[in-house]
């Protein structure tokens, strides 16, 4: 009888010990992994990763690259996850830009051929300084990555930016003569088309046009980059769901809330149109 009791308390001890050991090794202090991939991230960190991808997408405007990065997370429904996260951000208030970026990336998932206009960036240093700036930390570091490097996501595609064109002699501010919607189904992009003429009706090159987005950056471009269309012509590619404010010249009035107009073809199907703005310097 005594021997049976003795065995029982040992068995009880082992069972209790095993349960404690499993609790610690599997739940409380599980194995810590290093050099992991994004697909293994916990949900909160997946959300952070998605947010950064979406924000970078606004800057790079490189849809394939953003989609390649997003694919690293191996979401079952990438578009749904992005939309849900965007809605959560909007509901919680704040981070409006992040929510827009996520929504835009969700649209890119559904329409991989989508082209967006990159946000303006501010980089004070010229490119030539990069090598020196980068070398210093590289030399100081003693850590050498030993992992096999993963396949890189596609490199950024640099969208050519308009080069600076000297400003014409400043006169009276340009006035908006007419604003109209352009509905041409064959146009592949929705544009803000700006035509600028002087008081005599002659096209003016080099007129500065500023375009801004609520909660976004300001971009500047100039007329005269498409002389084959018109020397006083400039355009800007709009993004679905975005609104823009536009100013022509240094002291021109602000045209607000420009967004992609909805056009209809002969069969009643809707498609995105463009906007035409005609400006003239008053006589």
């Amino acid at each position, binding site marked *: 009888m005594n021997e049976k009791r*003795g065995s029982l*308390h*040992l*068995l*009880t*001890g*082992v*069972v209790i*010990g*095993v*349960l*404690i*050991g*499993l*609790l*610690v*090794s599997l739940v409380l202090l*599980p*194995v810590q*992994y290093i*050099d*992991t*991939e*994004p697909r*293994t*991230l*916990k949900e909160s*960190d997946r959300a*952070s*990763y998605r947010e*950064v*991808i979406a*924000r*970078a997408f606004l*800057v*790079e405007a490189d849809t394939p690259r953003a989609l390649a*990065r997003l694919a*690293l997370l191996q979401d079952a429904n990438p578009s749904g996850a992005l939309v849900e996260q965007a809605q959560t951000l909007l509901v919680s208030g704040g981070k409006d830009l992040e929510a827009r970026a996520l929504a835009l990336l969700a649209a890119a998932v559904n329409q991989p051929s989508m082209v967006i206009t990159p946000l303006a*960036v*501010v*980089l004070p*240093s010229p*490119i030539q300084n*990069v090598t020196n*700036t*980068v070398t210093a*930390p*590289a030399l*100081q*570091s003693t*850590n050498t*990555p030993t*992992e096999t*490097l*993963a396949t*890189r*996501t596609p*490199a950024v595609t*640099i969208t050519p930016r308009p080069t600076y064109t000297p400003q014409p002699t400043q006169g009276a501010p340009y006035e908006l003569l007419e604003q109209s919607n352009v509905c041409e189904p064959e146009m592949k992009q929705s544009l803000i088309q700006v035509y600028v003429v002087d008081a005599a009706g002659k096209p003016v090159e080099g007129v500065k046009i500023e375009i801004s987005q609520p909660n976004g*950056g300001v971009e500047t471009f100039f007329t005269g980059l498409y002389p084959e269309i018109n020397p006083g012509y400039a355009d800007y590619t709009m993004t679905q769901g975005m609104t823009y404010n536009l100013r022509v010249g240094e002291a021109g009035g602000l045209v607000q809330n420009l967004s992609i107009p909805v056009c209809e073809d002969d069969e009643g199907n809707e498609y995105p149109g463009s906007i035409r703005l005609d400006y003239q310097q008053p006589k």
Partner: protein
Amino acid sequence: MRKNRLVGFIIAIVVGISAGLIYGWVINPAGVRNTSLKSLRNDYKADYVLMVAECYASDGDLAGAVERLEAISTSDAVSVVQQGLLTAQQMGYSNLELMYMAELEKALTMSKAGD
């Protein structure tokens, strides 16, 4: 006799804990899931740093950049960017990409020096 039983019980618990730990840590560890950004491989971290640098280049929000960088490492933000730059150089990132990261590193260093 009673003392021997207590010692035996404690030894049994220790043996059980050891067995449980060996099972959970060596024989059948928990799968690779629910990891954090801090455990990402260096090349993924470098790409993350690049994305943060691009965000900073567009919004100039240094505090936001620091917050994002601290999510991927226990080191300070400057070290994170420097490590990212090192990896990016080894992986042949473009000059423009390196410039974004270098600008962020410079801004962080200046901010740190100003504190």
